[in-house]
Structure formats: C-alpha cells, structure tokens
C-alpha cells in the first residue's frame, strides 16, 4: 500500500538540516548521509550527497529527474563491474 498523501514525503530530519547548511555555505562538498529511506526533495537538486551503502558513501548528484525517488535507489549495496566494451560516460 502506498504512503498516504496527507503525510507528505518522508525525509529524515538530519538530512534536511545538512542539506540546508550545505546550501547556505555554498561550498562544494559531499553531504554524507546514512538515510537511504529519505525521499529526494526539490530543494536537494544540485547538491551532492554521499549515500551510505553499508560499506562506503556513494556520491549522488541530485537532478530534477530524481525527485520523489529514495536516496537508496542510487547507492547499490552489491558491486557488479561487468565489461566496459563500448559503454560511454558523459560529463554533465
């Protein structure tokens, strides 16, 4: 069953505080968080979070398309390298 709309999205309060502090300072930093369950809010766009995967903090650059998802979705807990083959990476 999905979450009731009247409750609004869930975000751990410390994540909000850290994000706000980082935005105010204007520093280029990774905001380390352990809360994989927190929802990505519009005010997080442009910030970089280090989302813990049980071993280390995976940097996640928040973009508009990610709003409404959970942080944990971008920080996998299992590693699979695969083959490079003809895969491409784009600098944004």
């Amino acid at each position, binding site marked *: 069953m999905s979450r009731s709309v009247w409750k609004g999205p869930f975000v751990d309060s410390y994540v909000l505080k850290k994000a706000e502090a980082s935005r105010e300072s204007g520093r*280029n930093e990774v905001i380390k968080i352990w809360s994989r369950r927190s929802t990505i809010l519009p005010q997080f766009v442009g910030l970089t979070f280090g989302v813990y995967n049980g071993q280390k903090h995976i940097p996640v650059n928040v973009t508009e398309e990610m709003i409404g998802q959970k942080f944990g979705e971008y920080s996998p807990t299992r590693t699979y390298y695969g*083959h*490079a083959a*003809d895969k491409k*990476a784009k*600098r944004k």
Partner: protein
Amino acid sequence: MSSDLICVGSISGAYGVHGELRVKSFCANPEDIETYAPLSDETGARTFSLALIRPIKNGFVTRIAEVATKEEADALKGTQLFARRDQLPNLPDDEYYHTDLMDLEVFDTGGTPLGRVKSVQNHGAADLLEILVPGANQTVLLPFTLQAVPTVDLSARRIIANPPEGLF
C-alpha cells in the same frame, strides 16, 4: 592481450546441431556487437565473421562463417570476442568510452596525484569514476561532472579533478 583490443562479447557454446553459436554481448546496445565484426580472439590471431540470427535469453544465436559444425562450435565455448579500439565510432565532446578512461592518472588542480581510474560506474545518477588511491585499501568514487572533472586529456593519459570536499 593487445591494449587496443576491447572485449565486446563471449561465446557461451553451441546452439543446436548445425554449427550455430550462443553469443553473449557486453555492448551498451547488445545488437551492436554485429557492427564490430570481424571480431578476434584474445591474441588477435583468429578472426570471427559474426552474424546475429535471433535474440535468446542472455544473448544471441549467431552464425560464424568460420564455424560449420557443432563440434567446432563446442570447441569455441568460453572464447572471448574482441574488437579493435579504432572500430568504435567517434564520440561528441564530453563523451568518452569507459575503456578510454580506465587507467588514466588523476591529479588535483594543484598537480598532486590522487590515483588511477579503476573503473567507470553508473548507478542511475551521474557517471562515477572509481579511483584507486595509492596506499589506501578502499577506492574513491568521483562524480564524472564538469565541476568535479574539468579536464580529461586522453593524449596525455591524465585527468585533472576538482573533487568535492570530504571525498579524498
């Protein structure tokens, strides 16, 4: 293995009894493996003219011109298929093949060495460079963004990084 050979797939075994093979593609778009034909083995000594017949679970049924019987197909089981680097199409600015980024030396804006690129990953957000830091037992993930990686110099095989605070 020659450094300009890139592994694009592997032969999983024979398919049926008429000399067809089961091939697994490692390409971003799996069908693209056919466009890099003729492929070669690890040493580059043997070439394979590969044609895809149809997709199956975990790969494709293929016909290789040099393979006519099931016995020959069985003998190739486990063979990795390689394409030459120059067969890959050119890319626009700010787009790079993972294979080109691997093993590049990473320096910060002051010229201090930070490490070497071990792999390129993407978990749904931006691409990430996994950097092997000398003397450390864990790797560091650096977002592959214009802000964090202002310069990629493939000819000099180096990357200039401006990592966010708290990463290294």
